[in-house]
């Protein structure tokens, strides 16, 4: 059985600039994978190479492999639209569409040209429930998503993903625009979701990484310095650079 996601010797260049240097990592089992490291070390770049969002940027060159259940996602064996349905993404700034709450959550279904209205409504409800938004929003389904407070917008973006039942959820600093209480709520939600989804989260916040992740990677200047069990990384790092970062001597 191949791993859910396996990244092998991944190099990524923005033009001449090498942002990822021979990165290796894996996502498997019911784990939340955390990615930490100082600003600009390539966390977002790595995350975005897992669902090919970097393809949208001109001048990006990629070497190495990203395997989804053993299949190279950059090969022609996997269509990019199919890939992005299977690997969803939550962004740093909540980015609900300027549509109603309902239309946001059903967006992925409309992308798939799913026509059954009854089932759509059921999926919207189920997804909002799974993102712990149903009780708050069930009377506001036809309000503009942009009128919601940020913390609800971010969970709406999560609900929007859940509606298409991805296998993996990538989160790029999903809490950085939120206050501590909203952050806690998202973290609890992640722990709840990890039963059903593989989750990879980029975070600036080391406490957050230690709270939610089971496996963790420390990146520095485009390199994956250390990748292993979160408990080990935080209590017993093998690499001197990780140790410096964890103890706060860097970044």
């Amino acid at each position, binding site marked *: 059985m191949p791993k859910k996601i396996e990244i092998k010797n991944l190099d990524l260049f923005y033009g001449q600039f090498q942002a990822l240097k021979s990165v290796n990592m894996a996502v498997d089992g019911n784990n939340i994978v955390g990615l930490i490291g100082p600003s600009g070390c390539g966390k977002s770049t790595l995350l975005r190479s897992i669902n090919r969002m970097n393809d949208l940027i001109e001048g990006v060159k990629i070497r190495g492999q990203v395997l989804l259940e053993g299949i190279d996602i950059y090969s022609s064996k996997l269509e990019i639209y199919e890939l*992005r349905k299977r690997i969803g*993404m939550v962004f740093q700034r909540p980015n609900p569409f300027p549509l109603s709450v309902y239309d946001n959550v059903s*967006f992925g279904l409309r992308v798939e040209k799913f026509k059954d209205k009854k089932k759509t409504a059921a999926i919207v409800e189920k997804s909002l429930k799974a993102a712990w938004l149903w009780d708050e929003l069930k009377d506001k389904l036809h309000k503009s998503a942009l009128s919601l407070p940020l913390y609800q917008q971010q969970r709406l973006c999560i609900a929007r993903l859940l509606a298409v039942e991805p296998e993996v959820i990538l989160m790029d600093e999903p809490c950085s625009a939120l206050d501590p209480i909203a952050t806690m709520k998202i973290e609890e939600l992640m722990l709840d979701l990890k039963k059903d989804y593989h989750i990879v989260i980029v975070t600036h916040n080391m406490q957050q990484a230690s709270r939610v992740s089971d496996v963790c990677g420390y990146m520095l200047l485009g390199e994956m310095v250390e990748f292993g069990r979160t408990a080990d990384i935080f209590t017993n790092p093998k690499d001197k650079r990780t140790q410096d970062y964890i103890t706060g001597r860097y970044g």
Partner: protein
Amino acid sequence: MAIALSAITMLVLIVLFIIKEGLPFIFKIGITDFLLSTDWEPAAGKYGIFPMIAGSLWVTLGAILVGVPLGLAGAVFLSEFIPQWAMKTIKPTIELLAGIPSVVYGFIGVMVLAPLIREYLGGPGLSIMAASIILGIMILPTVMSISIDSIKAVPNSYREGAFALGATHWQTIHMVVIPAARSGIIAGIILGLGRAIGETMAVIMVAGNAVKLPNSPLDSVRTLTANIALEMGYATGMHRQALFATGVVLLIIIMLLNYIAMTAIRDRGKKK
């Protein structure tokens, strides 16, 4: 400041002058007779401008039917599928098209378009259809450049969100980008509409200017603007006032359109 003030004063004076010259006439002859009668015979004291109102509306509607789909398609193509550096030269070029004198458009309409319509579709050639096509082309720069601006103003995070859900580029455009840019696009359409309804020279040249209610797009019509321009040279007395009154009607229609455009733009600002 002083210059701005005097400019505004001048505009207000012009509007007041038109209203002062036109409004008493409307009340004298009766608003329904003026607006809804189809008889325009100034020599016989008959001043019904309904054919001209209809002419203006048909021609403007036609211009919208021609200009909006083309303009929107062009705007989407240019803002979503063309590299940024190419846009930098293409967009000013489009805006330059707005500066071509309308007599040039009219000339092309008379020399090329009208004969083609006459030959292949029948009728006099100089017609609603000819005017619609010419006006549709004339409003393209307005519709396109404002639509491009509002499509460009759609935050990239919306596009990313759609792509990340597996949407294709086309799905992203019609499900997210256009709805997000909608109020700006509508504003562009309405400004184009204002331009179409106010256009005079090109319309006089290609619309045929017959004062009667048209039965088909191939019929000739006279617009409100054409009516004023064609007759002002020799109009006196009541006739002259009737032309000013025509101007009042035109003014009201254009102000209404601008008001709608402004509201659309303002709503867009509020949503952000």
